[in-house]
C-alpha cells in the first residue's frame, strides 16, 4: 500500500502572528477515507489549504507536506492542485462562474484540454453528481444541495487522486445530506473530510484524526475515537447518537 499524503511537523503562523498549526503530523494511505474532526478554530481549514498548496503563501525552508512523494512547493503548485481536489466550505466561494457549465469546465480548461474533451468531462462529472442537464443553470438559482454537488463536479472534473472536503454537509437539509453522503461514499478517490458532522464520519471514514489548538490530539478508528465520550467533550465535540445506540450495555 503506497502513501497518498504525508504531513510531517507542519507549522503555520498567520501574517498577524497567530499560530494556527503547531507541528501537525499524519499520513493517509491510498484509497483511505479519513475524517478530520475538532472544535471551531482548531486549525482544520488552515490545514486543508496546506494539503493542496494554497498555503503557505511563500515556501517554507523545509517541505512539510508530500503528495504521492512530491513535496508541496510553489513551483510544483500546478501539479499539486491537479492531484488534490479541494471542496470549499461555502459553495458560493467556489461557484464563481455565471453558469454551471462554465464552472465545472473551469478546472479542465485551465489544464489546457481541448473544447470537446472539456465538454465530455463536464457532462460525465455532472452525471456523477446526479445533475445531468444542469449545464445552463445559474448558480444563484440552485438549492444548497445542488450548489454543493456542482462544486463537487467542478472538483471531480479535474480528475484528482485525492479529495479534500471542508464541511461538505454544512447548511444542508437532511435529504441533501443523505444524498451527498451516498455520493461521497461511492467515490473511488482517497478522501479527507473535515467536518463537525460526526455521523458522516462514522458512516464514511475508516480512520479519524482529532485536531485541537493546531495539534493532532488523537488518532484511531471512528468507533473507538468518537465513542470516547470524555475525549469528545474535552475537545468541544460530543459522542454521535449513532454510537450511543451501539453502547455495550
Amino acid at each position: 500500500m503506497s502513501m497518498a499524503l504525508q504531513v510531517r511537523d507542519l507549522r503555520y503562523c498567520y501574517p498577524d502572528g497567530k499560530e494556527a498549526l503547531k507541528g501537525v503530523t499524519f499520513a493517509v494511505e491510498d484509497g483511505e477515507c479519513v475524517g478530520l474532526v475538532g472544535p471551531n478554530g482548531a486549525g482544520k481549514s488552515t490545514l486543508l489549504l496546506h494539503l493542496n498548496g494554497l498555503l503557505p503563501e511563500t515556501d517554507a525552508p523545509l517541505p512539510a507536506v508530500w503528495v504521492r512523494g512530491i513535496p508541496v512547493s510553489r513551483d510544483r503548485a500546478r501539479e499539486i492542485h491537479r492531484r488534490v481536489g479541494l471542496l470549499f466550505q461555502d459553495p458560493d466561494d467556489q461557484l464563481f462562474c455565471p453558469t454551471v457549465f462554465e464552472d465545472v469546465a473551469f478546472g479542465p480548461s485551465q489544464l489546457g484540454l481541448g473544447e470537446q474533451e472539456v465538454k465530455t468531462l463536464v457532462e460525465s462529472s455532472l452525471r456523477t453528481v446526479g445533475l445531468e442537464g444542469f449545464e445552463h443553470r445559474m448558480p444563484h438559482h440552485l438549492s444548497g444541495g445542488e450548489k454543493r454537488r456542482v462544486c463537487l463536479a467542478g472538483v471531480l472534473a479535474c480528475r484528482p487522486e485525492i479529495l479534500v472536503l471542508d464541511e461538505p454537509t454544512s447548511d444542508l437539509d437532511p435529504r441533501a445530506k443523505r444524498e451527498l453522503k451516498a455520493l461521497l461514499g461511492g467515490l473511488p478517490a482517497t478522501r479527507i473530510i473535515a467536518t463537525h458532522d460526526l455521523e458522516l464520519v462514522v458512516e464514511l471514514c475508516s480512520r479519524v484524526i482529532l485536531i485541537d489548538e493546531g495539534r493532532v490530539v488523537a488518532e484511531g478508528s471512528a468507533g473507538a475515537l468518537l465513542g470516547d465520550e470524555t475525549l469528545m467533550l474535552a475537545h468541544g465535540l460530543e459522542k454521535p447518537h449513532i454510537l450511543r445506540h451501539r453502547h455495550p450495555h
Partner: protein
Amino acid sequence: MRLQASFHLPPSIISRLQASVKAAGALVILLGIASLPLGVPLLLIVPVVVTSAAALLSRFPPVTLLRRLLMLEPFAVAASALVLFRPDGWTAFWTLLVKSSLSLTIVIIFSATTPFGDIFMLLRRLKLPGILLTTIALLYRYLFVLADQVERMRRARAGRTFAKGRRLAWFLNSGVIGHLAVRSVERAERVYAAMRARGWE
C-alpha cells in the same frame, strides 16, 4: 430594491434571434430615434410604430412593460424638463420625453429577451479586455449573493433598532455598506483561493 433579473418572457420571434442581431437592431433603432430633431413631433410616428411592433413581437405583457418603463422614467422626466427653457419649450419637452421612453422600451425589450449568458458571449466576441470581462462575470455572479447579504444585515440591524429617525437610518445603512465592503473583500480572497485550487495561475 431594483433587482429583478430573474424575469422571463415566453419564447418569441425576438427571443429566438441571435444576441448580436438583436443588439445591432436595437442600436440601429436607438440611433434612428436619437437623430430625430426636437420640435417635429410628427416624425415620432415612425419609431412609435417600430417600437410597438418590437413590443408585440417580443410578447411582452403590456402592463409589465409599462411598469418597468415607469420605474426608470423619473430621470428622463427631470432631464426633459430642462428643455422647457427653449423657445419651443413644450414641444421639445414632449418630443424628448417620447424619444427617451421609446429608447427605454427598446432597451427593456432587449434585456428581457436576451439571457445574461448571451450578452456576455457578445461582449466577449466584441473583444473587450479580459480583466473587464472577468469583472463583469464576477459582478453578475455575486450581485445576487451580496444583495441577499444586504437584506439580511439590514433586517438583523433593524430588528435590534428601537429608535427611529433619519440620522440613525444613515448610520445604520452606512454600517451595513461598510460591513458589506469588508465581507466582499474577504470573499474575493476566498474566491481567489478557489480559482487557484482549480489551476488558475
